[in-house]
């Protein structure tokens, strides 16, 4: 890499404001350079903050390794789960992580079909986040099995016991929903990467880098034939992924809604879970995108326009979530059901009342600041808000799982749930694992879709030019 290119890496970028989805003066070549150089820069010019970040994340990840090793050795007794609270952190964390994953699919599939051009700068990033979040989520159901090494019993396969998974259980629907989601997300992410991997291959200077990118670029040459087929495949995948945005968290909410427990047995669960998932997903995208754009000077590619749009999506989905909470309270009163009413009062004022109050504060009250344009454009405050919503959405699952379970139908079986150090260790460990993967991703792969950015530039350039007169239609 030339000296002037290295210097360009350190040059701070200027945010062009909310009217532009990309900074001024970019050409096809410079936008490619800018994005590719984040990954292709020499090892020594990696920002120190990156090393610091991945170091901390990697250390946190050890909590997952140590915690789960001890869990496999001793059994689920190392966790705080005790009857009547048989579902603890494992399920809370599972739902939280899988919810976070939803923003990726929404951005990449639904916004693609809706032709929202502001998705381009953040879709790759959000898809990677989805994939890594689903990986964290997928671990928890396996960890919480009493005998995790028999996890494959969840899949229907011809076995010598002639036993099949119980198809009437939503836990089995979960297995299929999540594994489908993981597969489609991975495919979507990888297919989207192929042309960019070819760009990286062509730009890399060292042979091993060329080979590594080239191997995964699958011989992409960028011919018209390639592009035609590629567009078709990508659109089909987007179509496949679209229903998943709705279906996956709906099925996750069935884990609760199908049961007959007060606080779980509610028809509002599916829509309110889906809205909550997108809410937390966008919060996580912001939590990750804001430091990344600062660290790698990408303010002219991830602009205020993107932050503003994401903040609006958060506000919208946050209001749906607020409606869900309101309906829960309303139905507790309106149904006249003794148990439902008790559950609601206990949730708000019982031993876990603190978590409910914090939940209302983090998910409903504080995010109302997003109505203000000045807040949406204030990057540090927006970052803080995204963290608050992440905490709030985690608390939501904590409240749903723990407060509904800890007061059983029979007062004699009432109990309390206290997470142990291993609960916290494994939870923190997955955050570490997730961040480690994200740090590696932004350093190794193009974190922003290069070819789609070039397409956006093309559209901007030709938007105001007169359209050529339509010629005679060709039959084909």
């Amino acid at each position, binding site marked *: 890499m030339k000296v002037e290119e290295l210097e360009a890496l350190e040059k701070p970028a200027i945010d062009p404001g909310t009217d532009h989805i990309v900074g001024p003066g970019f050409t096809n070549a410079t936008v490619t350079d800018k994005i590719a150089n984040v990954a292709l820069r020499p090892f020594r010019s990696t920002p120190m903050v990156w090393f610091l970040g991945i170091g901390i994340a990697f250390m946190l990840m050890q909590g997952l390794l140590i915690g789960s090793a001890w869990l496999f050795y001793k059994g689920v007794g190392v966790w705080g789960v005790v009857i009547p609270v048989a579902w603890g952190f494992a399920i809370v964390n599972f739902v939280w992580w899988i919810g976070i994953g939803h923003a990726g699919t929404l951005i990449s599939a639904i916004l693609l079909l809706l032709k929202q051009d502001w998705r381009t700068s953040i879709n790759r990033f959000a898809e990677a986040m989805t994939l890594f979040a689903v990986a964290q989520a997928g671990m928890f159901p396996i960890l919480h099995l009493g005998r995790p090494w028999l996890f494959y019993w969840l899949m229907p396969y*011809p*076995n*010598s*016991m*002639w*036993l099949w998974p119980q198809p009437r259980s939503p836990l089995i629907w979960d297995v299929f929903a999540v594994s489908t989601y993981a597969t489609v997300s991975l495919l979507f992410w990888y297919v989207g990467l192929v042309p960019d991997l070819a760009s990286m*291959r062509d730009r890399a200077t060292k*042979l091993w880098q*060329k*080979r590594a990118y*080239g191997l995964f670029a699958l*011989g992409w040459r960028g011919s018209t034939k390639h592009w035609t087929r590629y567009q078709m495949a990508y659109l089909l995948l987007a179509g496949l992924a679209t229903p998943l945005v709705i279906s996956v968290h709906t099925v996750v909410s069935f884990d609760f809604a199908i049961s007959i427990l007060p606080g779980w047995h509610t028809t509002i669960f599916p829509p309110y879970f889906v809205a909550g998932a997108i809410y937390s997903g966008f919060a996580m995208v912001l939590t990750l995108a804001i430091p990344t754009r600062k660290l790698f000077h990408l303010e002219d590619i991830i602009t205020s326009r993107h932050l503003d749009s994401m903040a609006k999506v958060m506000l919208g989905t946050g209001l749906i979530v607020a409606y869900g909470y309101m309906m829960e309270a309303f139905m507790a009163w309106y149904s006249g059901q003794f148990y439902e009413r008790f559950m609601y009062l206990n949730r708000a004022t019982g031993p876990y009342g603190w978590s409910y109050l914090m939940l209302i504060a983090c998910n409903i009250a504080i995010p109302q600041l997003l109505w203000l344009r000045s807040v949406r454009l204030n990057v540090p405050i927006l970052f803080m808000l995204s963290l608050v919503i992440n905490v709030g959405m985690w608390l939501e699952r904590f409240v749903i799982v723990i407060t509904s379970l800890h007061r059983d139908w029979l007062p004699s079986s009432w109990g309390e749930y206290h997470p142990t150090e291993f609960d916290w260790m494994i939870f923190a460990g997955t955050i570490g694992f997730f961040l480690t993967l994200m740090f590696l991703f932004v350093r190794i792969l193009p974190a922003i879709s290069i070819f789609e950015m070039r397409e956006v530039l093309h559209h901007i350039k030709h938007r105001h030019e007169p359209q050529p007169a339509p010629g005679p239609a060709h039959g084909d």
Partner: protein
Amino acid sequence: MAQIFHRGTNTISRVSIIGGVLLIGCIITAAYTIDRGSFNSDVAVVKEQPVPFSHKHHVSDDGIDCRYCHTSVETSHFAGLPATEVCMSCHSQIWANANILEPVRASWRTGESLAWTRVHDLPEFVYFNHSIHVNKGIGCASCHGRVDQMPLMFKVNTLYMNWCLDCHRQPEKYVRPKEQVFNMAYQPPANQLEFGKKLVAEYHIQKLTDCYTCHR
């Protein structure tokens, strides 16, 4: 710019597509074969015994009934292994000096039991009762095979859960009249399913697929 991959890489990548599918197929086939084969189930595997006891000789040639040795099969969960005295009731008179029977005589002299190696060994988490099967019209040969034709004892069935369930889900396929239970050569009638259904009703065969029936 020089090519970054050798020309042969094209072939490797094409082969790896087919090879990947084949490899997965091979792994599945191997896993299935090991799981279902004798390696895992011990079907048709003859085990070393202190005395090479021949069921064929005692049942076919001599006409001894199963219950002469397996005394508790009709009343207990365990069919019972014969005490040394049962062996000696004949072998104190015939083949009394045969070298092959020395362990039996030694057991008789010292009072130490013969240590047979179990051929049909169910895991501890399965509750199995011989008497209920025998009393509801399941023949010895249905599970143990033609023991009267085995010079040395071996399993003919896997004793896997799917094998148990094959009958527990559809007992009419195998049930026979009670008086035929100990008949090794019994042949089911041509209308076994119809006939079996009648017997199932007559013998009140029920509750066969509750988990609790076998896993208590």
